[in-house]
């Protein structure tokens, strides 16, 4: 198979062979990262712009490092959408950046569909680094990559995802990446944060963390966004932590060799206890390492085609 996709907007329409293609490319990228000189000239002369309308340190840094490891020029552009209406600002900003002729635009935006909107209006490749509650495709791919590396396979594994399912773009991308590769997915969270229509994806839904974790091979804990505390989604942090936090007692229900993942940043003591976050079965730092390799793979694949040439 050859890679001909111009944008990575979401995993929703990714074929299994495309997912495997990215994973395979990421394996080669990971080898580059084991060398003394962790840099290859593949994207020499290409420009990657990180356009972040939402606060993010790790995803932006990860894309930045991925671009630099491939010898691309990486420019970071952070902006706030507070004062102007979003549509106007976004298009205006994008056109300004396009005038500088980048090859790849990596965008994070609070509005779902913002990357898709840009893809229709600019000529360079777009990578979605998180759009509202829609998708976070590179996270979905790096979660898959991390599990494959730890477990050797994904098909047939019980993967529990626990937390704020409603607002999570990570869940939506994980559903595509892990689901399409044959994982048995369990989504768990307080009822108001657990949309019933997600059962249509084939995932099992439960508000009982014990049911989700029992016999699980992989447990992905989502960050609870503290700002949502003010809304009526759950009564208090302590209550949330007691019912949906992962601690040693609940973790004991999982398989003996179960692994714990988290897209970060962790609220220690809320969704994940200190001792579990730092235990030998935690893959949280492996996820960060895999993230650079997976993003290198995405940038490399998008930068290669003549469609990306200016």
């Amino acid at each position, binding site marked *: *198979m*050859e*890679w*001909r996709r111009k944008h990575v907007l979401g995993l929703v329409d990714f074929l299994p062979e495309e997912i495997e*293609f990215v994973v*395979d*490319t990421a*394996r*080669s*990228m990971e*080898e*580059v990262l084991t*060398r*003394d*000189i962790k*840099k*290859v*000239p*593949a*994207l020499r002369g290409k420009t990657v712009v990180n356009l972040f309308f939402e606060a993010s340190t790790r995803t932006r840094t990860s894309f930045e490092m991925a671009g630099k490891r*491939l010898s691309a020029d990486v420019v970071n552009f952070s902006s706030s959408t507070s004062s102007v209406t979003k549509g106007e600002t976004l298009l205006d900003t994008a056109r300004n950046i396009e005038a500088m002729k980048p090859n790849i635009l990596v965008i994070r935006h609070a509005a779902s569909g913002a990357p898709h909107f840009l893809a229709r209006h600019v000529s360079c490749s777009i990578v979605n680094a998180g759009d509202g509650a829609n998708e976070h495709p590179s996270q979905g791919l790096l979660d898959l990559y991390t599990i494959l590396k730890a477990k050797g396979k994904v098909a047939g594994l019980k993967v529990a995802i626990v937390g704020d399912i409603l607002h999570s773009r990570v869940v939506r991308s994980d559903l595509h990446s892990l689901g399409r590769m044959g994982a048995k997915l369990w989504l768990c969270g307080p009822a108001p944060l657990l949309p019933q229509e997600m059962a249509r994806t084939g995932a099992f839904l439960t508000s009982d963390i014990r049911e989700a974790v029992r016999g699980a091979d992989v447990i992905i804990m989502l960050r609870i966004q503290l700002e949502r505390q003010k809304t009526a989604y759950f009564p208090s942090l302590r209550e949330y932590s007691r019912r949906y936090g992962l601690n040693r007692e609940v973790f004991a229900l999982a398989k003996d060799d179960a692994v714990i993942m988290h897209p970060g940043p962790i609220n220690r003591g809320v969704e994940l206890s200190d001792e579990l976050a730092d235990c030998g079965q935690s893959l949280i730092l492996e996820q960060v390492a895999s993230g650079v390799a997976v993003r290198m793979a995405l940038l*490399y*694949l998008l*930068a*290669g*085609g*003549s*469609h*990306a*040439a200016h």
Partner: protein
Amino acid sequence: MKKPGAKTILDWKGVERVLSRLTHEILEKNRGALEIVLVGIASGGIPLSRVIRKKILAIEGIEVPAGFVDITLYRDDLARAGYQTRLKRTEIPFSIDEKKVILVDDVLYTGRTIRAAMDALMDFGRPQNIQLAVLIDRGHRELPIRADFVGRNVPTSRSENVEVRVEGSPEEWAVLLVEAPTGKGE
């Protein structure tokens, strides 16, 4: 196995003899195998370097370190194809510092692959020197690069392709000159 219009340059015995001579030349020039490491260029150079390694073991009784390098990330024509193909693996699980690196490929053509391979090697360390061994030199160089060890010089036209088979049992080995071009040179 022979395609219509294909011309045999070397049959399996020919490949065997040429690789034996190549191995002896490598050992002669380097006065043995002590400081040698072999690096095959993916994909075509990998089976060849395996054969050479076996022959060195038979002659000198030494198992030289052997690895392989994928040059895709070092190519100078990345955006030209219009699509990306799958990357191959790079594996050089030993230090090449102060070693004599024998770079092995099946066909030497424009020289661009070799340029890329040398750049890749330099990212792994500082070898004492790099020597190039190829089974076939088909001419048409676009860079000032030459091989130290050549199995066979074959005059070709750009519309022809050289096909090297050095995998499976030796009876299946062959080098063919194929007419109908696929567009891929090396």
